[in-house]
């Protein structure tokens, strides 16, 4: 049976779409049949992050209005043909679809694909209701900031009320150095508030920005990165493997601190 997972956060800009793109791509790399759905009508981004923007011909709205078949709207990934994207319409708003219609789309996809990942828009209005309508599981993305954690907490409550009980937590954009200096909430702090099982910790990584701009999810990169490995670990845990959490306490090992060290050596 297909696993229908919504990726949500409540707050905007914490990395929902980046997580969706990377998790989807990592699953596809493992030869799973994956469909990623962009539920962010009017502000779609998932196609950009996957580098599929210029292949979008039809969107979910056209499928629902009967202008095309579902298969026509699915955009096959250019690297893995077992990954497809169902794009959202860019020229409409969240009210263009209803939770029932969303359920209809997801259930049709669930017959063919093993994983359905739904990229939820920020907020808890119509777009959120649509995104979670068909979901059986949820991945909550949060950054270690009180605002993001507060919103995540609210969203977990809403998910539970909507009968999505299998909820896992991703702590995104963690800066180990700041945590060590007691300037940032630690993973434990976040977990203490949210009290849902942790599935991954993604360290802050500038390469995420580079990969986003290139439309190449980080998990595809040849050179391993901390964030890329974190996403790989998340999908292994998602598939039931026991994977120990990465040790993220190497605060001095990023490019800038190395550069700074090098420079200070030369100057002095």
């Amino acid at each position, binding site marked *: 049976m297909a696993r229908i997972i919504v990726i949500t956060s409540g707050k905007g800009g914490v990395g929902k779409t980046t997580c969706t793109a990377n998790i989807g791509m990592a699953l596809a790399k493992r030869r799973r049949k994956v469909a990623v759905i962009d539920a962010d009508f009017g502000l779609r981004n998932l196609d950009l992050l996957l580098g599929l923007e210029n292949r979008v*011909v039809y969107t979910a*709205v056209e499928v629902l209005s009967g202008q095309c078949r579902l298969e026509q709207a699915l955009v096959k990934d250019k690297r893995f043909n077992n990954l497809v994207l169902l794009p959202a319409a860019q020229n409409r708003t969240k009210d263009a679809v209803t939770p029932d219609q969303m359920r209809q789309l997801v259930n049709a996809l669930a017959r063919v694909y093993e994983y359905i990942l739904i990229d939820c828009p920020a907020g808890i209005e119509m777009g959120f209701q649509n995104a979670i309508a068909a979901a059986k599981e949820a991945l909550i993305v949060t950054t270690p900031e009180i605002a993001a954690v507060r919103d995540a907490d609210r969203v977990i409550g809403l998910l539970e009320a909507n009968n999505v009980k299998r909820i896992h937590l991703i702590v995104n954009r963690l800066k180990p150095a700041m945590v060590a200096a007691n300037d940032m909430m630690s993973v434990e702090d976040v977990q203490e508030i949210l009290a849902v099982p942790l599935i991954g910790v993604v360290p802050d990584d500038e390469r995420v920005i580079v990969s986003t701009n290139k439309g190449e999810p980080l998990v595809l990169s040849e050179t391993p990165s901390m964030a890329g490995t974190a996403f790989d670990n998340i999908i292994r845990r998602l598939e039931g493997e026991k994977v120990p959490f990465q040790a993220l306490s190497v605060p001095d090992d990023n490019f800038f601190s190395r550069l700074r060290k090098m420079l200070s050596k030369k100057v002095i």
Partner: protein
Amino acid sequence: MTSETSSTPPSTPPVEVNPPIQVRLKSEGGRLVLTLPPESEATDANASLALSWGEIWQQFKQQLDAKERFWQPATSVDLVVNDRLLDNRQLQAIGDALTEAQLQLKRVFTSRRQTAVAAATAGYSIEQQSPAPVTPLNQAQTEAGQAMDEPLYLQMTLRSGTEIRHSGTVVVLGDLNPGSSVIAEGDILVWGRLRGVAHAGCKGNARCLIMALQLEPTQIRIADVVARAPETPPAQYHPEVAYVAPQGNIRIARASDFVRQPAPEKTG
């Protein structure tokens, strides 16, 4: 200097046949006619195509801004709402926005009693049937061999999410940003950068052209042929023309060379 677009078209080329769902503002015999899309579609299978008041309002404001230069102050405006329900507040909002643009809302054409009452209360004169020159759009399209509408001239930047549909040629004085689209029955001329989606000859006329000062589209479509921009963007841009070659694929030529070529019309 003819270069072929690098990518192969997706397997399912689109054929746009749905009636334009768009607010229209055009001049007719010294007056301006503002037409709102019909509401009747909302009842059938195309439910998700019907525009909400919010979307209509947004389109109306955009149209008003884009054409500001084309009318004299104090031009009178006919509002054609057909079967759409408008309440006092909405009519008032339209009237105010027109006044702000130095236009005067004079008459309201409606087939709904409630709208007529609301318009009468607001002091506009009512016409209970559609005026002869303004046939409902969806009706006009069923007739075979229909002449195209007058070109639509827009002075605006089309930002992400904006979609312009027109049954004729579209001229844009400004840029098409990524995420925006123009769907025209005729040609599309962009005096600016074309970076969104352009679909010329959407009713199937493969002789239609797309031209832009800087052609770097997400996607271009002419009739039922689709092309993507090459993965590696050229170092320099020239004014270019996109047309359908006799071989049935989309080709790009420099504007300066295009006029000297044998006319592509021969492909018929």
